């Protein structure tokens, strides 16, 4: 069993890799669309901006592989901008089309006293969530998924967080988990969430580090 990490360029993957290593899993960086399509589990990390992220996925040719595996429910974790790339469009880069597996646009967080929304905030999962539990997560973002109702209609369990206004802070559907926050930086709560995702993905943690 391997967990592939989509190498999106300058994204900060060291923290993600370190968090998984502490859980006994070595991520395998890849730029290969075939690996992204077929790997038992895939992590899509955050990168700089929506436009640059979409362009990078296009250059690598991994966009359709990602969209397809999420549609069929193959274990996939998207973090921060990785989550936003799954949406239709983003206010951040209006001319650019996302992967369109999440039926919503991405919009700027309105009503927050200061942006970016930096720091720890409470995540409130939807009833029936299997991976997400109530707790404090670390956020570093300005934009978020807009349409919770459309996501719910599409079968996603939608978690919310409040900063100025309530916004979608994570979605899960089976073994697909997409987080606006950074589980890899969310201390013990985040590590436990990654552990549940690995379990849902059926990944063996053979080298667990205390």
């Amino acid at each position, binding site marked *: 069993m391997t967990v592939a990490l989509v190498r999106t360029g*300058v994204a*900060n993957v*060291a*923290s993600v890799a*370190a*968090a998984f*290593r*502490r859980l006994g899993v070595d991520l395998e960086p890849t730029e290969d669309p075939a690996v992204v399509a077929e790997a038992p589990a895939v992590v899509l990390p*955050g*990168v*700089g*901006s929506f436009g640059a992220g979409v362009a990078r996925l296009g250059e690598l040719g991994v966009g359709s592989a990602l969209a397809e595996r999420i549609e069929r429910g193959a274990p996939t974790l998207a973090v921060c*901008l990785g989550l936003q790339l799954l949406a239709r469009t983003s206010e951040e880069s209006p001319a650019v089309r996302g992967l369109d597996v999440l039926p919503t646009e991405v919009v700027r967080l309105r009503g927050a006293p*200061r*942006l*970016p*929304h*930096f*720091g*720890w*905030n409470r995540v409130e999962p939807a009833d029936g969530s299997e991976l997400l539990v*109530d*707790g*404090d997560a*670390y*956020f*570093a*973002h*300005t934009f978020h998924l807009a349409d919770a109702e459309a996501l719910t209609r599409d079968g996603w369990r939608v978690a919310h967080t*409040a*900063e100025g206004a309530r916004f979608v802070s994570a979605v899960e559907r089976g073994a697909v988990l997409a987080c606006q926050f*950074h589980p*890899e*930086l*969310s*201390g*013990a709560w*985040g*590590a436990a969430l990654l552990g549940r995702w690995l379990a849902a993905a059926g990944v063996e943690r053979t080298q667990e580090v205390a």
Partner: protein
Amino acid sequence: MVAIRVIPCLDVKDGRVVKGVRFQGLRDAGDPIERAAEYERQGADELCLLDVSATPEGRANATETVAAVRAVLGIPLTVGGGVRTIDDAARLLDAGADKVAVNTAALVRPELLTDIHDRLGAQCTILALDAARFDGGWEVVVHSGQERTGRDAIAWAREAADRGAGEILATSWDRDGTGEGYDLELLAALAGATDVPIIASGGAKNSAHMKSALDTGATAVLAASIFHDGETTVGAVKRELSADGLDVRIANQDR
């Protein structure tokens, strides 16, 4: 509502944590990896690691220290010190930093902030601002406070935010290491001048100082000496801040 943040700061030189007063008279304050793990265990919301080495050899060691700290640390890590170019910033991210703090080099070439913002994102573009009181205002100081720049600190903060800095780490040179409390007037001026989050730094002795800074417009408080010297713990100050009515993340709580 986003919680306030308490951020221990490790000033690292030649692989060791050091601490002085007003950036001078550095003394040993322990092993950075042990310190990092201990502060996360105490409930730190982030960790800041500033490389205060003066030599290229020291810089190379600092990158190794960042990687070693990253291996044990499950909370955000800001790294600063000697960041001159976008490649320096990318190298620190590769080593395991989540945010990069830029100081002197941005004064010389403000486009550096824009470069880091555009390539790596606002969330990892931090302006480290060292400000000294001067003539009724604040002046930016560099080279461990030994050199005044003639630049107005508030105007510089505003320009840096406009250029893409996602956060400002504001250190009062006058208060650093003194335990006299943060420079609240500096924080109020900065919070009024920009919309980006402000991290208060320099002078904290206790949670009352931290509460004053947070009430004055800081969104996070940084401290070093009081944690290194064991005068208090991160957990203790967070419990006190919570009791004072601030929204605090209590780590490892039963929930």
